[in-house]
């Protein structure tokens, strides 16, 4: 269809000199790389880095584990009977999550588990620095997965042409602000304006999330948990936390 074109750049210079000229020009310009460990990359909120677990929201429904294309999610739970809250009332049963683990050596980072979770217990976090020297250490148990929660960014505003969210269209619930209403920020500015990623604590001093009984579970905004206690190894902290708040049911032994 189209004929071979004359070279676009460099004009009449012979090809060899063009190459020399371009490299010399590049030499005189600032580099386009960043020094990664010193300058952390700016990752968009949708970036699929690691999967965070908001344990309070998990009902052990197993949907994520079943939908996972490579079966890398392990869930153990048991039923627990709660005594009736009012005299003469019925006893209630609930699922208690014993183990929730994702094997990141198998995970294909497709995000289906997060998509299918009906209770928003799983979230993407852009964090990616969790390489290990031993492949077995890539199996993140629920306390480790919980520690990613503070790094989960809020979802980005949507394009102005996007359809109204189903919730807004259905019943203008006051709790849910219309996300699509705001005008989009001008080009490029949005990336800079994006809320700063929460300060990344060193691995050891990440706040260990204590388990709460279901009644008091509240979906807390991701950024609010600041390490209140002196740094403690996560596993012991979660154990002590659960000892205080949980009913003295035989708890799981596998996840420790």
């Amino acid at each position, binding site marked *: 269809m189209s004929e*071979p074109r004359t070279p676009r750049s460099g004009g009449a210079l012979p*090809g060899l000199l*063009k190459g020399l000229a371009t490299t010399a020009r590049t030499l005189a310009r600032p580099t386009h790389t960043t020094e990664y460990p010193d300058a952390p990359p700016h990752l968009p909120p*949708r970036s*699929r880095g690691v999967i965070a677990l908001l344990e309070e929201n998990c009902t052990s429904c197993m949907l994520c584990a079943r939908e996972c294309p490579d079966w890398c999610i392990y869930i153990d739970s048991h039923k627990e009977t709660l005594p009736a809250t009012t005299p003469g009332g019925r006893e209630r049963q609930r699922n208690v999550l014993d183990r929730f683990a994702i094997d990141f050596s198998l995970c294909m980072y497709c995000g289906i588990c997060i998509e299918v979770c009906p209770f928003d217990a799983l979230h993407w976090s852009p964090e990616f620095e969790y390489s290990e020297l031993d492949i077995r250490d890539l199996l993140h148990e629920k306390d480790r997965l919980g520690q990613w929660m503070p790094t989960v960014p809020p979802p980005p505003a949507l*394009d102005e*042409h996007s*359809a109204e969210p189903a919730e807004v269209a259905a019943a203008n619930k006051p709790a849910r602000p219309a996300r699509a209403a705001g005008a989009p920020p001008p080009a490029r500015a949005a990336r800079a304006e994006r809320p700063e990623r929460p300060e990344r604590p060193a691995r050891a001093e990440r706040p260990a999330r204590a388990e709460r009984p279901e009644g008091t579970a509240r979906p807390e905004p991701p950024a609010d948990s600041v390490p209140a206690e002196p740094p403690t190894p996560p596993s012991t902290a979660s154990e002590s936390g659960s000892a205080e708040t949980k009913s003295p049911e035989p708890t799981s032994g596998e996840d420790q």
Partner: protein
Amino acid sequence: MTSSAGQRELTVGMGAGGLATADMVLNIGPQHPATHGVLRLRIVVDGERIVSAEPIVGYMHRGAEKLFEVRDYRQIVVLANRHDWLSAFSNELGVVLGVERMLGMEVPERAVWARTLLAELNRVLNHLMFLGSYPLELGAITPVFYAFREREELQAVMEEASGGRMHYMFNRVGGLKEDLPAGWLERVRYAVRAVRGRLPELESLIVGNEILEARTRGVGVLTAELIGAYGVSGPIARASGVDLDLRRDEPYLAYGELFGPSGPGRVVTRTAGDCLSRLEVLLEQVHVSLDLADACLERLHSLPQGPVNVRLPKVLKVPEGDLYTATENPLGLNGYYLVSRGEKTPWRLKLRSASFNNVAVLAEVLPGNLIADMVAILGSMFFVVGDIDK
């Protein structure tokens, strides 16, 4: 070391036997710098001249087709975008387009244009990779750094929309996973402009370089007959004058309009069929794809408010039947033959990948060339090993 067909005695490496020469079997790969992975070429050389060549494939066979059969259509997308890891979006597209056609599903217009945009950006990403790696095989070490700078620019916007840098996982049956972020279209426009503006730098190292032309002009000529016989497709076929591009010939997505009479789309062809013309086709396709991306952006700006996906049933079952869906992937024709028995998984999903056919033709082209030319030809076949072995 063996002698070929028992014609001559082997003397190489023994230090004896006078001046008689013998053929030497040389394994290029499965671990070799020029094979981008684990392709293996078993070549017989007389000195440096290749007597015969045989591509040996399968070192990276992952059984993709069999894995498809035990996964539902969303899970298939996860796998399908992985065989050709440089054209993940186009791979996803073939699966969902096939399923949508069998369901008779209408995809919202914004999704169609957004998909077209992302597919073209993916094509640019793919081509930039080869525009960097091919000169690298010819000994030019710098183009790959310039190409990756542009790739980074585009990957940033791809990641912002889809969350992934290679395996986008952004297609769903019926549209896209979620809507585009606010201000994203502007940033894509900026990225496309930046890439187009800096392409001349990359071109200045490739286009018109006398050494590169000496290495590629007239080397590894593929005739149109060979193209037809081996089912070679994509930029390689078009470089030999085979004017075939599914985007124009069997339009899907919004290509019918883009490649229409007034659209910016045009099919890039060359006639020489040598390594140089294959490189030229790739380079020019980048320009065409950037133009197409601009047209898509224009359209996405003017489209009315609307969804980018349709609500799916809880369990998605494809009605009984079969359908072949082919798309014009960056590397060539990529087809999925979907046979459904009304289950939520396909009964069979045959994958026709571009690189497999494109590499098969090597056995015809390589004999008679030098080892140095072998690398030039191999690189100009623009293959991805995962796409060969599936």
